[in-house]
């Protein structure tokens, strides 16, 4: 059970979850950008993540690097299969990443980089959603290589997961901004939050119901006794969380909706894991088949054991330093 490949599958799943949690709200702010007023509001919104965005995105690099290191075969199959959405994501991340700096460099160019921040965040998020959908849907494999074409990823399901993630990240972004801002900006976000939450809930529901019908194997996994019994709390907890978010938004409690919304994401993510494990390329390659030799996994585990706790400490410290509401006009620019 706790052999090195399984440990690494768990660690990588954790890394990707942390990425989704941390960069989700961060990308969400970019998606919300057109709804914020030019100038001050956008400045403040960006400054709520400016000190931490780079660290958030590093989890994506660890996800990619970790997959290469721990499951090189899976990495070698998934990346070419998802060539187009992966590269689209990278292009999106380029535009939004540089916007954090470029936006402040020339007042006359602010429009360009507002658009870059929005467009880049939207493209990156939509692509990540497509990657997720196409991945769950399955990838054509022949021997040790991807055997499909360069548009296999395109399907109604992957488009739909792309769309859902856009709304999902925008929702996280809203909760984050409610937590980090005040005044008019926060009030407007409160108005936005309820319709947005309902949309996210609807979309997540559709994706959850759609997923088991993608393959008989996933279907069997969800709708089989006694598994069904173990899994039944998942939708119940989700409904409970949604209720708590609703109540707290109504009461205008700035601090609770964000962690609760993260809880919703964790739950959906767990559901996804149930649909996939023990595969690392769904229904084609298992964790054990793709795993690098123990000599690689063990060597890396030492590094993870040393560095991950340190990373948690100083990342937490950095969030702690920049805690609290961001006032208009703060920043080093």
């Amino acid at each position: 059970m706790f052999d090195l490949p399984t440990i690494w599958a768990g660690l990588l799943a954790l890394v990707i979850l942390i990425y989704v949690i941390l960069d989700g709200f961060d990308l969400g702010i970019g998606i919300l950008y057109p709804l914020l007023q030019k100038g001050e509001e956008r400045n403040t919104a960006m400054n709520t993540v400016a000190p931490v965005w780079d660290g958030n995105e590093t989890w994506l690099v660890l996800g990619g690097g970790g997959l290469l290191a721990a499951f090189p075969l899976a990495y070698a199959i998934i990346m070419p299969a998802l060539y187009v959405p992966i590269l689209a994501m990278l292009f999106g991340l380029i535009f939004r990443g540089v916007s954090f700096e470029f936006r402040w460099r020339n007042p006359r160019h602010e429009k360009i980089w507002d658009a870059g921040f929005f467009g880049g965040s939207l493209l990156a998020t939509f692509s990540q959603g497509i990657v997720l959908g196409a991945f769950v849907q399955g990838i054509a494999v022949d021997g040790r290589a991807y055997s499909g074409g360069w548009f296999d990823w395109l399907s109604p399901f992957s488009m739909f997961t792309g769309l859902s993630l856009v709304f999902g990240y925008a929702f996280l972004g809203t909760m984050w901004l409610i937590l980090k801002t005040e005044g008019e900006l926060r009030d407007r976000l409160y108005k936005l939050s309820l319709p947005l939450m309902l949309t996210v809930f609807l979309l997540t529901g559709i994706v959850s119901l759609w997923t088991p019908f993608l393959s008989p194997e996933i279907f069997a996994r969800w709708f089989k006794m006694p598994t069904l019994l173990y899994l039944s709390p998942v939708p119940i907890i989700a409904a409970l969380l949604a209720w708590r978010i609703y109540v707290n938004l109504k009461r205008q409690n700035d601090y609770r909706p964000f962690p609760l919304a993260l809880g919703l994401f964790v739950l959906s993510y767990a559901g996804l894991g149930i649909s996939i494990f023990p595969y690392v390329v769904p229904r084609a390659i298992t964790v054990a088949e793709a795993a690098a030799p123990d000599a690689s996994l063990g060597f890396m585990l030492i590094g993870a054991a040393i560095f991950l706790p340190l990373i948690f400490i100083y990342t937490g410290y950095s969030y702690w330093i920049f805690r609290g509401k961001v006032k208009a006009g703060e920043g080093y620019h």
Partner: protein
Amino acid sequence: MESVDNIALLLARLQFSWTIGVHILFPSFTIGLASYLAVLEGLWLKTGKQVYIRLFKYWVKIFAVVFAMGVVSGIVMSYEFGTNWSVFADKTGPILGPLLAYEVLSAFFLEAGFLGIMLFGLSKVGKKLHFTATLMVAIGTFFSAFWILSANSWMQTPQGYSINDVGQFVPEDWLKIVFNPSFPYRLMHMVIAAYLTTAFVVGAVGAWHLLRDKTCEGARVMFSMAMWMAAIVAPLQIFVGDMHGLNTMEHQPAKIAAMEGHFETQKGAPLILFGIPDMEAEETKYAIEIPKLGSLILTHHADGEIIGLKAFPKEDRPNSLIVFWAFRIMVGLGTLMASLGLFSLWLRWRKKLYDTALFHKAAVLMAPSGFMAVIAGWTVTEVGRQPYTVYGLLRTNQSAAPVEAPAVATSLLIFIIVYFVVFGFGIYYILRMMKAPPTPGQTPTASSHPIGLDSIMSTQTGKEDN
């Protein structure tokens, strides 16, 4: 079908060289600049002199822009191994993957985690903690160089591995893998190159402002610091480069032959200064040579034997035309850098360092020299490794992903356009920031640009100090 595959392969190679070539420019600058910032802040804490913290604030903004560009172009690299070189990724993943994972864990998080505090946190955490953050960022850039150069060096001089039944390289001895034979030399050579790149940019900015206002204190301080660096480190680099070359001759003689334009194996080989290596005709045309000097440099004996390209089968030879010329560009630039550095010592001794306009103009012209030398040097070592990705073991044409040519052509085109646009803007912003004087001048010569953004920016700098 084969020709279509060849096109896809060529496109994938072009895409990789373009994306990595652009990417390496940013870390080349930030590795040195992070250390420079740490030195500036350290000097400020130690002496309390305002000029150091002003210079810190001046360069930290530039650092932030360059760093952001390095981050976004770097994320591309960590996925491109899979999207375009999936067979390579599958086969080398068990060895290169952990090295890259260590880079992310020990370096990228450190840099990213403390960058926020370094940029935004001075008023929140106090001086000492802030200095710690700056140091962490600098250490992070070094760790990053350590791991990525270890990985690259393993591809050049692989050891400590075995090959399993599905054809993957698997680790046998991690110490041997990490500290493979070419690694120490490549690490030293690259870190020094990064320091020089930074020194010549800082020196050029200092010189540019000295040409406008000799009394500008910030410009004097940064110019002086940059010239010390150039004077000491540029000659050191020539020495380290020579050691790196000797190491290459031991492990990759074909690369040396391509660098030297030697096709015949010979004792007492000449040094070919210039010429046009012709891979088809198997000779270096129009060669201008100095007899025996080639052997003297490479073997330290006038009659030492140097292996030529003909000693290797045609399909195993790197392209000498590219390697030969890239090597000469690198060496030429290195020589210029060392000359400028040594000349600065003489001017300093004569107390004319801040008064010699011609020298300042030369220093301005040398601003891009470090970047050019880095690109030329990487061209030597990477093209010189061809036709292999893992030297002698895995061929480049057996490393690529099964992605169709139109897909790669499209992405390559987008990469070229996006990089030109995005990084073009970035370079423009950096140049604008460099144009603002580092500290307010004491004489009204600053009136050469009395209105506009420069004066606004300098006022802002003034405000921040309060």
